[in-house]
C-alpha cells in the first residue's frame, strides 16, 4: 500500500510538471512566431483565439489528423523511435530543474551532469531520424546536426566548469544558492555570452539552423516525417530550447532568486522569477532568430572549435587562478 501511495504521489508530481511544460511549449511557439512577425513588421499569428494564442493548438490538431507516412525504404522501427526519443529526452531533463527552492521533482547531487548527459543523448534522436529515413537530405542534415551538437557540447561543458569552480557543488540548488550575493552573470559575463551562443547552436536555432537549412537540405533530418511524428520532433526541439533557457537562468541569472533582496521583490514567489528569467532568455532567442543571417558550415565549426573552445579554456584558468589567489574557493 505504501509503495502504491508513493508511486501515486510521484506520478502526480510528474504530471504536474509535464502538463505545464507541454502547454508552455505551445505558448512559446506562438510567442516565437509573434516576435518574429513584429520584428519584420508583420502581425504574426493573430487569428485563432485572443491574440492568436490558440494557433499552436490548431496546428497540433492538424498534425494529429494528418496521415503518418513511412517511406517504403525506411527502417521502420528506428524511424518511429527517433521522434519518441527526441521528445522523451527533452522532457525527462526537466526532472532535476528546480523551479523554486521547493519545486523540484528530483534533487540529485549531480543535477548539472544529468542535464548535460541528457542533452548529449538528444543527438541520437536526430541521427536515428536522419539515418532511418534512408534518403539523402535527411542523412546529410543528421550528420551536420550531430557534428554541430557534439562540437558545441564541448564548449558548454567547459563553461559549466567555470560556474562549478565558483560553486563547489554539482547540485542545481547549490548553484542557485551560491548566487545569493552576486549573480554569476556579473563576474562571468563573457562566459554567459558564449553560453548563450552555444545554446543557440546546441538547439539548432537560427543563426545555426544548418541541419534544417531549407535552401540546401529541404528540412534536414525531418524531411521524411509527417503528421504527429513531425510534431513530436518539433515539441522536443522547443522543450529543449526552454530547457537551455532554464539552465542559463540557473547557471548565470540566479534561478528563482529575486534581483535584489528588498521588500516588494523578495515576497514574490520564486517560480515567478524563474519563469520571468526563462522568458527573457527565450525572448532573446526569438529576436536573434529574426535579425541574424544563417552561418555557413565552416564558419560554424570555426566558431566552435577555434574561438569558443580556447576562449572558455583560458577563462577556466583565469577563474581558477583568481579564486585561488584571493582565497575565494568554495570550501
Amino acid at each position, binding site marked *: 500500500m505504501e*509503495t502504491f501511495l508513493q508511486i501515486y504521489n510521484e506520478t502526480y508530481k510528474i504530471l504536474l510538471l509535464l502538463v505545464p511544460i507541454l502547454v508552455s511549449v505551445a505558448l512559446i511557439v506562438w510567442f516565437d512566431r509573434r516576435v518574429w512577425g513584429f520584428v519584420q513588421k508583420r502581425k504574426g499569428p493573430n487569428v485563432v483565439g485572443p491574440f492568436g494564442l490558440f494557433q499552436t493548438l490548431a496546428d497540433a490538431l492538424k498534425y494529429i489528423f494528418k496521415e503518418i507516412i513511412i517511406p517504403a525504404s525506411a527502417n521502420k522501427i*528506428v524511424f518511429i523511435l527517433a521522434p519518441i526519443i527526441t521528445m522523451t529526452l527533452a522532457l525527462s531533463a526537466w526532472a532535476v530543474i528546480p523551479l523554486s527552492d521547493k519545486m523540484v521533482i528530483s534533487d*540529485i*547531487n*549531480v543535477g548539472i*551532469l*544529468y542535464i*548535460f*548527459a541528457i542533452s*548529449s*543523448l538528444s*543527438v*541520437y534522436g536526430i*541521427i*536515428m531520424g536522419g*539515418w532511418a529515413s534512408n534518403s539523402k537530405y535527411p*542523412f546529410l542534415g543528421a*550528420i551536420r546536426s*550531430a557534428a554541430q551538437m*557534439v562540437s558545441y*557540447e564541448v564548449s558548454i561543458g567547459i563553461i559549466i566548469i567555470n560556474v562549478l569552480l565558483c560553486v563547489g*557543488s*554539482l547540485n542545481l540548488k547549490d548553484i542557485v544558492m551560491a548566487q545569493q550575493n552576486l549573480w554569476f552573470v556579473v563576474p562571468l559575463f563573457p562566459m554567459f555570452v558564449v553560453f548563450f551562443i552555444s545554446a543557440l547552436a546546441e538547439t539548432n536555432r537560427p543563426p545555426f539552423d544548418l541541419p534544417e537549412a531549407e535552401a540546401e537540405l529541404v528540412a534536414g533530418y525531418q524531411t521524411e516525417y509527417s503528421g504527429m511524428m513531425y510534431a513530436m520532433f518539433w515539441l522536443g526541439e522547443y522543450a529543449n530550447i526552454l530547457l537551455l533557457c532554464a539552465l542559463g537562468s540557473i547557471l548565470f541569472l540566479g534561478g528563482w532568486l529575486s534581483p535584489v533582496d528588498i521588500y516588494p521583490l523578495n515576497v514574490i514567489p520564486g517560480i515567478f522569477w524563474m519563469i520571468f528569467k526563462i522568458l527573457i532568455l527565450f525572448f532573446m532567442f526569438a529576436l536573434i532568430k529574426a535579425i541574424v543571417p544563417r552561418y555557413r558550415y*565552416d564558419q560554424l565549426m*570555426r566558431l566552435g572549435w577555434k574561438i569558443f573552445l580556447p576562449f572558455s579554456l583560458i577563462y577556466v584558468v583565469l577563474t581558477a587562478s583568481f579564486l585561488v589567489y584571493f582565497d575565494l574557493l568554495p570550501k
Partner: protein
Amino acid sequence: MIAHALFFYFFSIIAIVSAIFVIVSRNTVHAVFFLILDFISIACLFIMIGAEFLGMMMLIVYVGAVAVLFLFVVMLMNVTEQKLSWFRGTKKTGHIPVGLIIGTVILLELIVIVGGWRYRDSFSETEFLSFNSEFTNTHMIGNVMYTDFIHLFQISGIILLLAMIGAIVLTYRKREGVKSQSYIKQISREREDSVQLKDVEFDKGVKLDD
C-alpha cells in the same frame, strides 16, 4: 527493497540481452544502437549502487561522445548489411582463430579476476556505496584522483593528447587546389578597394584598369 531488486533485474537483463544483440545483429548500425542501449543500462546500474558520478560520466563520455563517433564511422563506411558468410563456412577467413585466441585470453583474465574477488559477508543485504554521507561521491573521487593518483591521472591525460595528435598527423593531408576563404581578407575589405564609380560616355563603353 523489492522495487530496488526489480529495477536491478530489469536493467541487467536489458544490458545482457543488448550485449548479445551487439554481436548477433546483422545490421552494423543496429549493432551500434544496441551498444548504446547497453551503455545506458550499465549507467543506470551504476546509479543504482549509488555511484551517480560514474554513471553520469558513463553517459556523457561513452554514450554522448564515443558512441556518436562509432555511429558516424559505421554509417559512413556503408557496411550496413553483414553477409555472415564466415559463419556458415562458405568463405575462408583468418578471423576465427585470431578471434578465438583473443576471446580465450579475455576469458582467462576474467576468471582470474573473478576468482580473486572477496565477497562481503553481508552480500544479500544491499547497501549503498555511500561510505561517508558527509561527502558526495564526486568529492570522494576528486579527493583521490587529484591527490594520491595525480601522476597517473596526468599521464593518462598526456597519453590521450598524444593519441589525438598522432591521429591528426597520420590522417591530415595538405591537398592542392582547395578553395577556401580567408576571414581576415573578407572582413578587412573596404568599399574603396572593391567599388569604382565611372562616368560612362554614350556609345563608348568603359575599360577598367585591372
